[in-house]
């Protein structure tokens, strides 16, 4: 499953990231990498943007980016 399918306050672990190098580097520098644990903190009303907590930072992502991150629920 992908990150966008995780509900608010649920935890998940990143399994795979499917995207181009540029975005992957961006994910890396914000600590979004394979095997990291994350929690979905908030979703906007239309579920178009979500906030996750990962390694003690809060990151906002658009749904289209979340779909590129494969996760499993903890």
């Amino acid at each position, binding site marked *: 499953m992908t990150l966008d399918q995780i509900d608010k306050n649920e935890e998940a672990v990143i399994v795979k990231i499917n995207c181009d190098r540029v975005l992957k580097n961006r994910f890396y*520098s*914000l600590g979004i990498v394979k095997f990291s644990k994350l929690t979905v903190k908030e979703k906007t009303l239309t579920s178009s943007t979500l*906030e996750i907590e990962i390694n003690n930072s809060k990151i906002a992502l658009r749904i*289209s980016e979340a779909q590129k991150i494969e996760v499993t629920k903890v």
Partner: protein
Amino acid sequence: MNKIKIALVGQPNVGKSMLINSISNARLKVGNFSGVTVTKEIVFFDYKNYEFEIIDLPGAYSLNDFTIEEKVTKEFLENENYDIILNVLDSTNLQRNLFLTTELLALDKKMVLALNMIDEALNEAIKIDEKQLSTILGKPCVKTSAAKNIGINNLLETLINKFESEKFPTKLIFSDVIEEEIRNICEFLKESNYKTNNTYRELAIKLLKEDTNTYQFFQKEPIWINLQPLLNHSFEHIFLHFETKDIEEIFNDEKFSFAAGVVTETVKNNNKKNKTLSEKIDSLLINKFLGLPIFLFLMWGLFQLTFTVGNIPMDVIDSFFAKLIDQTKFYLGDNELSSVIADGAIAGVGSVILFLPNIMILFFGIALLETTGYMSRVAFLLDGFFHKFGLHGKSFIPLVTGFGCSVPAYMAARTLKNDKDRLLTLFIIGFMSCGARLPIYVLFVGAFFSKENAGNILFLIYISGAILGLIAAKVLKLVIFKNEDEPFVMEMPKYRMPSFKLIWHTVSNQALMYLKKAGTFILAASILIWFASNYPKDKEFENKINSMMKFAQNEIQIQALQNELALYNLENSYLGKLGKASEPFFEPLGFDWKMSVALETGLAAKEIVVSTLGILYGLGDEVLEDSKSLSSKIKENIPPASAISFIVFVMIYLPCLAASMVFAKEAGGWRYLAYLFVFTTSTAWILSFIAYKIASLIY
């Protein structure tokens, strides 16, 4: 005196600029969202016989080329001369911050680490063993808090020590496989006796990282013939070991595990997963249902404040300048000189300074949004909405800055990575009414609407400008900027109590910039406009009126004649001719020639629109002894429908000269400025025409 040149590097929101402020009391803009320091800023100060030069580089999460900021920082660190890198880290988030540090270590320069926000780390029960950290990295680490002024002197001493001591070899260690290949390449370079300014290790790491510039350089070197097979062999070995051919991923994994390893060895986190204060605030401010209404309420409150509180000092300033003009004329007598000083210079600059309180309140509000970290939340809330119009959630930051001043707004747009996204944002920033347009709105709204309604109308003007901007964005996106969307991945920094000192810095900086404009550019423009509105003089007509005045039977007739002369002079002045010439263009919008002239002078700076109107309408009634305020003069002379149409035109047409220059620079060419001129002028004309027709039906 020794000079120490320091490159200040850190991820966004680690308090870099604030640290500079605590060290040197410098004037620098500081903010709590990505992209405040877009260009590098340089600060000079002296400490103990040393002359410090600190270059505040744009915040970068890593040294990739993802954003322009990261590019600027990377290029500076790799190509410029400096003595020491000062890497600022957020103590509460060391692991992610160390990711950048690992990349800095690869540069192999003298480096000092500032573990900033140490007070917050203590509050969150995070313990850092900085001595251990120094040993692992081979670089001195100093605990600091820019906000609480902790460790600042210690940091300066450490920098001096570092400057005076020899450079140690860097301790960035990769896994055995990569270290082996680095050794191989270094040995080869040594054997070949290769001459370079960089260290062999640095070159080896760059080659293994497939750094494009390094390859381009080496391909022109004779050594390349033997280097290439060696590299091929190295890569084969590495790929085999890591089971992937993506060298970037391999190095990222390396850096990440290095950072994670360092953190396990040096940081003790006793944080009992309580909800932090930031999370509590966020549960309200970015709440699904409450978030947006709260945001809109805050914006509305800000504009109400700007109007109501701002009015109090305005009255004082207004009467001060009225007195000053009267006094000047009294002392200098009735002549050309007193007219140019009083009616040209003082009146022009006075009408600009009049709006200083409004502008300071507005900038105060925006600075507050920036420094608390609320700005990122707003981007989070609005991205879904903005995305529908083809904009990026991050476009919000330059757009909101546009409400203050277009110049920093254009520069803030650099946070957008994708060229087309950035251009699109640049094109619609002008729709966000800048602080300099505020005086025009305040003047017209004050003249035509009741006091109770004024705040609401002002809010309406700003909101409808923003909505028009969004519609324009959608149209431009569909017609011109067709492209893939830029990804939206953004850090949400912790909420921070705004430091009064920092906000004061920002607000006073803006106020000073505004006053400087008033003192120089606008002063010159005011005198020019005064000249253009007073010359050429028609002696014949003046004599005729003067002789007629001798036969006048009472005061009223004399006044009427004097009025006639003043108006005749104005209409036939250079300014009047210019306005008359463009009248056919503006006539369908309900503007007379005076309004046309005011708009044209507004191309230089929006503040001048008000001062031009002041001069134009002030001169016309000068002979009447009661000095009416500009507001009531405008009410007498301009029909309401034309006023509304005028407001609409001002909302949309080209920003001031300075902003236009910055726009051309940021967009990447003068032709874009030409596009912007055509785009804004035609939109402004069409919408003003519609507004005029509708308003004419109502009034």
